[in-house]
């Protein structure tokens, strides 16, 4: 049984890594009061940019991730101009970004369908990877997985312990008050949104250059949306976000191993499970209105245009 479980659990970590990146990025954006429904689009743009760059330059996954981050940031800039500078409805602008991202990535990707990349080899962490079972699961991963942990720790630390974190929270609660005491609300929100874009871009590039590693049209397959849902599930807390991401990563992996585990459910219905589970999880969290209201950035989704 253990021998069966180790690859499943180890695979879970890799499968969850895009969700961790994209979810953390969206969490930071939402902390500042901006909901960006364009995560799916930014992931796809990051995926094709990373894949194209890695195959064209031969720079490997590292170069791909950097290109993905840059492309995700650019995509987020489009969203930010619309929703922050021009005051467009955030939900609409995010949707527009997703639709645009699907179209753009498919358009560019058409010339890359036949390429493939080598992916990444697992990197053993000395000593830790020798721990029985746990070592094989946690510390026998590619370096991007470790990077995602570092990002999670940094995001959690910044939010909890620094003036910047306090400021993000303040802007997310009341942009009016933050503006009144002299903080550049729009600039801060730009920063948060662009960070979200970079993270979504990395998430997409990880899919195309490490996880798959191929370009397939629409390859993010709703992961961007699941990341948005995870932020709600996490009640805007990085620790809980990680937990949720691994839960969903596990579900994705499970369908691959279903046959091996003797589960006799048609594969199409197994594939639907993560999406149905997202709905279920949203329902379970959202029904507790008080919990949500205590943690929800109060200005989330409302546009703020400094007057005067």
């Amino acid at each position, binding site marked *: 049984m253990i021998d069966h479980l180790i690859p499943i659990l180890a695979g879970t970590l890799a499968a969850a890594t895009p969700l961790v990146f994209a979810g953390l990025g969206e969490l930071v954006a939402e902390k500042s009061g901006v909901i960006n429904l364009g995560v799916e689009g930014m992931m796809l743009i990051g995926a094709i940019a990373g894949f194209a760059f890695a195959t064209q330059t031969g720079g490997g996954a590292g170069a791909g991730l950097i290109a993905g981050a840059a492309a995700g940031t650019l995509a987020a800039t489009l969203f930010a101009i619309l929703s922050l500078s021009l005051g467009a409805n955030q939900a609409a602008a995010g949707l527009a970004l997703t639709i645009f991202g699907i179209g753009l990535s498919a358009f560019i990707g058409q010339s890359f369908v036949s390429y493939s990349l080598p992916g990444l080899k697992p990197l053993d962490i000395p000593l830790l990877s020798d721990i029985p079972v746990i070592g094989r699961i946690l510390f026998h991963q590619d370096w991007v997985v470790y990077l995602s942990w570092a990002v999670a720790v940094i995001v959690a630390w910044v939010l909890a312990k620094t003036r910047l974190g306090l400021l993000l929270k303040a802007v997310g609660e009341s942009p009016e008050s933050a503006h009144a005491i002299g903080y550049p609300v729009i600039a801060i929100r730009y920063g948060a949104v662009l960070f979200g874009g970079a993270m979504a871009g990395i998430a997409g590039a990880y899919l195309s250059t490490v996880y798959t590693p191929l370009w397939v049209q629409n390859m993010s397959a709703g992961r961007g949306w699941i990341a948005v849902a995870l932020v709600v599930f996490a009640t805007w807390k990085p620790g809980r976000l990680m937990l949720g991401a691994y839960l969903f990563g596990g579900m994705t992996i499970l369908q691959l191993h279903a046959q091996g585990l003797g589960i006799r459910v048609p594969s199409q219905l197994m594939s639907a499970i993560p999406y149905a589970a997202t709905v279920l999880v949203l329902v379970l969290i959202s029904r507790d209105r008080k919990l949500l209201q205590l943690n929800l950035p109060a200005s989330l989704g409302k546009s703020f245009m400094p007057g*005067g």
Partner: protein
Amino acid sequence: MLTTAPLDHPPPAGEPRLQLLHITKRYPSVVANDDVSLTVMPGEIHAVLGENGAGKSTLMKVIYGAVHADAGEIMWNGRQVHIANPAAARALGIGMVFQHFSLFETLSVVENIALVIGGKFDLPALAERVKSVSEKYGLPLDPGRLVHSLSVGERQRVEIVRCLLQNPQLLILDEPTSVLTPQAVRKLFETLRQLASEGVSILYISHKLHEIQELCDTATVMRGGKVTGHATPRNETPASMARMMIGRELPVCHAEPYTGVSAPVLQVRGLTQPTDDPFGTPLEGIDLTVNSGEIVGIAGISGNGQAELLAALSGEVPVTNDMVRLGDKAVGAMNAAQRRDLGLVFVPEERLGRGAVPSLSLTDNALLTAHRQGMVKNGLVNYGAAKEFATRDIARFDVRTGGAASAARSLSGGNLQKFIVGREIMQTPKLMIVAQPTWGVDVGASAFLRQTLIDLSRQGVAVLVISEELEELFEICDRIAVLAGGKLSEAVPKQQTDAEAIGLKMSGLFADHVSGQSAQGGSHAPA
């Protein structure tokens, strides 16, 4: 009403702390400041007096760097300065206490303060400083408390302490007493006098004449964006200052005694309602009767259950059925639309976004509640009838606007309020509930609105007014109750009470008399 304390600080002398020279600020539709000049000396308490819309707040924002003037200059301690933003103003030594506080509800007191104070990010050390400064000035604060658990008075303390930690040379207070009980106002004045005696200059913005007379050394009076006079308040009378402020005598309302039949219209019995909102106030055992032909006022500071009581009375949040009766019908479980069908009308405190839809025309906004006046047949709207209704409303209630097609948000606060009040009155109500009838409304429109409410009640309508303005309640009401900490005191005839007694009840002390329990001061007493 309040006794005048002697000034215990030396008269100002030497170089001015702040000089504004010919400040002009234009907005697309209005000149908010037109060639405004004023001088504040060190240690001087200087009033800026004017009614709503006179340009006081814009002027203060110019000083605080939140708004940039189109013309004019600012001299600070004898040197010309350009104040780029609030951080720059704070660096100069200018502190500001906002009218609508600039605090963050989900952050603690010390976190709120840390956002404004520069230097190393060390919350425990800052908490110590907050404690010592707040004790020195008699403004006790617990640095670790979350702001949403503080009363309005305590929040103001946070704002003041936040300014004091930066050793300001000039402190600006924008309408600071509108949220305080008379007792708390007295304590605030003590603190301000102490600061002035230490050499801090104070700019005190208000439209309350007696407060300015009591506290301030000098006054600059503004009207329509211009300075209309400089005065020494102690040498003036309220009437003379009022003339400078509004350009004519203060209008007064007339209330004839009601001679018709008086019968209970609204009866609230044991209204108890927990709240879903983590920042809300639960209601506890509220009893209230409003009779035809009278105006009952509910005094108290917002955040003490006002929003919850209004929601329960209007039907936006239904309660247990027999807790609320309209005439002889129990209506507690009915929703807002059903209660309106029975003759209840309601004017909420938020005019834009609740009482009216900002982006829609006045015709469409007439439809909002008046659609039951024969404007709808088989679910289909007769927009002609709505337009005709809006046009009549505009004419009868003197609404200054381009016409029924104007968007609600293009109207001034006073004119939109007249339109909304008119829309509700024209539905021939049995009961009218009004929240903060004259918030942000100029003196002329305020007088008109108050007289309108009195006239309505004298036609036999029961009127319930919830207001933070004590003077307003004493002017128009027959009986006054106080809502504090989710509990309502008995409504007593206004002749049998005064501002002092009402102020005490606002601190929650009445709980002793009402329920026999210990004082519910708690988090809602501004002490």
